[in-house]
């Protein structure tokens, strides 16, 4: 299959709200010649990354907006525009190949429309973009609600955050402490001719100079390294693990942090890892197996403690809560298309419910680490403020940094170009049972 058609079909599913690229792209890639898979992937991710900007350009060139039934044509147009303005594919090839795909859509009218709009874009695109520069949503290629929310939350940083969201993320590894030091692994990489350097903040992190197929890394299959962003790697040390502790990972899939905390403290009494669906635990199980680690996996809603909790309190809880994922847009650019403004208060509500339920399972003196990959205060600092206000016996512990920005509660990491993802941490200690008998 033509890589442009595959990208457009995957993107169309995202535009119509049926899937994320993570779900819709792989089945399309299977139909593409292996040589062209990287291109198809770049076209889908790139078109999603720049969609807010490209869609505004298309709007200027189209007489009327697309109907819901024509998302496939719209997606193909975005893929065409992306090639014209963000790749080195020659314009004639980009236009010819893209228009050529329209026959497969069985919409004969689309061929003329795509041809006309793409050729117009080639002629007038730069001028229209110059005009659009005045619109911050177009300039930053972020949906307007998100651009405004970021500006309100980070008046000094929002443009840098948007730029980081549009940049390509580095590939970060986590060295398994149980199998030797980071320095030793760095030396091994150097011998293998792979350029890499230690991360600034995570003691286990390594940043590769260039992305590569991780299966080719020394010791990957034997579990000596894993792929995990630096920001996510901070959780294990923030939990202050010690031998004998019983630890809960409340929203564990895909299991990166579950594995990291088992690597960091081999003397833990037990790790219980909960996630909503059995299907999501498959990846967790695979990760544990590759790394030779053990945890008790339970498929359940974390809020429904009656269903999964045995009544034995935990000394440590990691709540990596479901969130808007606005901190990892650079890794999942389709978040720009799938996330809606009204999702945020709903997520904050869910996060609050998880906090309340899990707090009951924490031992007095125990620590709960709240984490999200969101950069929106409503899901983070505001949420923790509300929790502390309604929970006697809960107190906040300081997170000293040096990374991130200190917030009224917790610490916010904003995505850094060539650095870590956007992430949020707050550390809570239970100094008394909430309900005094």
């Amino acid at each position, binding site marked *: 299959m033509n890589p442009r058609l595959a990208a457009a079909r995957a993107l169309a599913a995202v535009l119509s709200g049926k899937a994320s690229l993570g779900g819709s792209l792989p089945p399309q890639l299977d139909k593409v010649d292996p040589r062209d898979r990287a291109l198809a992937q770049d076209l889908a991710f790139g078109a999603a990354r720049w969609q807010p900007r490209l869609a505004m350009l298309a709007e200027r060139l189209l007489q009327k907006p697309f109907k819901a039934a024509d998302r496939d044509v719209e997606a193909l147009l975005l893929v065409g525009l992306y090639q014209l303005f963000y790749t080195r594919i020659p314009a004639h090839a980009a236009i010819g190949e893209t228009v050529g795909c329209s026959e497969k859509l069985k919409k004969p009218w689309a061929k003329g429309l795509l041809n006309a709009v793409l050729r117009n874009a080639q002629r007038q695109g730069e001028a229209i973009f110059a005009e659009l520069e005045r619109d911050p949503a177009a300039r930053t290629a972020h949906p307007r609600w998100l651009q405004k929310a970021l500006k309100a939350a980070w008046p000094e940083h929002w443009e840098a955050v948007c730029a980081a969201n549009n940049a390509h993320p580095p590939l970060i590894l986590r060295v398994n402490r149980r199998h030797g030091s980071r320095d030793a692994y760095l030396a091994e990489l150097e011998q293998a001719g792979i350029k890499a350097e230690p991360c600034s903040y995570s003691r286990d992190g390594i940043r590769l100079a260039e992305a590569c197929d991780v299966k080719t890394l020394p010791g990957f299959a034997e579990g000596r390294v894993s792929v995990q962003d630096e920001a996510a790697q901070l959780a294990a040390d923030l939990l202050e693990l010690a031998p004998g*502790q019983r630890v809960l990972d409340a929203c564990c899939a895909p299991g990166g942090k579950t594995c990291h905390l088992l690597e960091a403290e081999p003397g833990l009494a037990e790790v219980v890892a909960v996630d909503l669906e059995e299907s999501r635990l498959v990846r967790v199980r695979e990760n544990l197996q590759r790394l030779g680690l053990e945890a008790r996996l339970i498929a359940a809603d974390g809020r429904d403690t009656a269903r999964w909790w045995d009544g034995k309190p935990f000394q440590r809880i990691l709540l990596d809560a479901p969130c808007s994922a606005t901190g990892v847009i650079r890794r999942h650019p389709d978040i720009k298309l799938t996330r809606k403004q009204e999702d945020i208060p709903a997520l904050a509500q869910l996060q609050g419910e998880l906090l309340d339920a899990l707090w009951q399972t924490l*031992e*007095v*003196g125990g620590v709960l680490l709240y984490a999200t990959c969101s950069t929106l205060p409503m899901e983070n600092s505001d949420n923790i403020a509300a929790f502390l206000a309604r929970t006697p016996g809960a107190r906040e512990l300081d997170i000293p940094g040096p990374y991130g920005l200190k917030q009224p509660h917790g610490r916010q990491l904003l995505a850094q170009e060539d650095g870590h993802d956007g992430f949020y941490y707050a550390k809570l200690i239970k*100094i008394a049972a909430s309900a005094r008998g």
Partner: protein
Amino acid sequence: MTEPLRLVFAGTPEFAAEHLKALLDSRHQVIAVYTQPDRPAGRGQKLMPSPVKQLALTHGVPVLQPPTLRDPAAQEELRALGADLMVVVAYGLILPQVVLDTPRLGCINSHASLLPRWRGAAPIQRAVQAGDAESGVTVMQMEAGLDTGPMLLKVTTPIAATDTGGSLHDRLAQLGPKAVLEAIEGLAAGTLEGEVQDDTLANYAHKLNKDEARLDWSRPAVELERLVRAFNPWPICHSSLDGEPVKVLSAAPGEGKGQPGQILAASKEGLTVACGDGALLLTRLQLPGGKPLNFADLYNSRREQFTAGKVLGA
């Protein structure tokens, strides 16, 4: 007088060792000591026994160092000791309910704060930092909570304007053991009753960290002055000058105004630095590779380094 009690003591740092010393000198019998496992310390990171362990060994008291008390084997070991009472001082491990219920008279704790004001890890320093007028030691009956149990006895001491974390610690380490002995007599005689704490007055005394010790010159001078005292002798407040770290060991309120961090004046009295509100007079500093020195000595030898207008922490 009642029968002497069989005591188990659990503690780790110097503050705890002072308590253990008093118990060893008392009419009661210390039958075993719990302390944290030896930790690597100092240059060479050799395993170092805690102050409590060192003292126990010189008195021939058996020392137990389980990594956790959640382990059933460790709990069984404690039960076998048949103690009347367990005295816990800055032990550093959380005691599960089964452990609290094991000794006949339960577990008591000597905590270096007037509870419920400062619960948690660093009550002495937090009291100085907050500008509290007084501090003290509270002996409480332990329950499953972080310093939340009923209070048996309190002794107080005023916090002077010159008190540091170190000086207050030393004073409380003198008061604590006496209070604990008194509480033990009261418990043995059955004359002591606990008073429930008011949770709404509780604050969590966060563990100290070095990042917090960096002087943020945009803060008011009064706040920084208290921080300098609270964090002496550890972790010691610090800033930087010309890109080099500077440790600030003592300071007093100063006079003047300026951009936060800016040096306003230098004299034998000290180095005046502008803060967000007011100014701070730094009187004792330590420069990289050097000893702690009174500012007068630095002023005599390296005056050019402290010219007015330079900015600390820039």
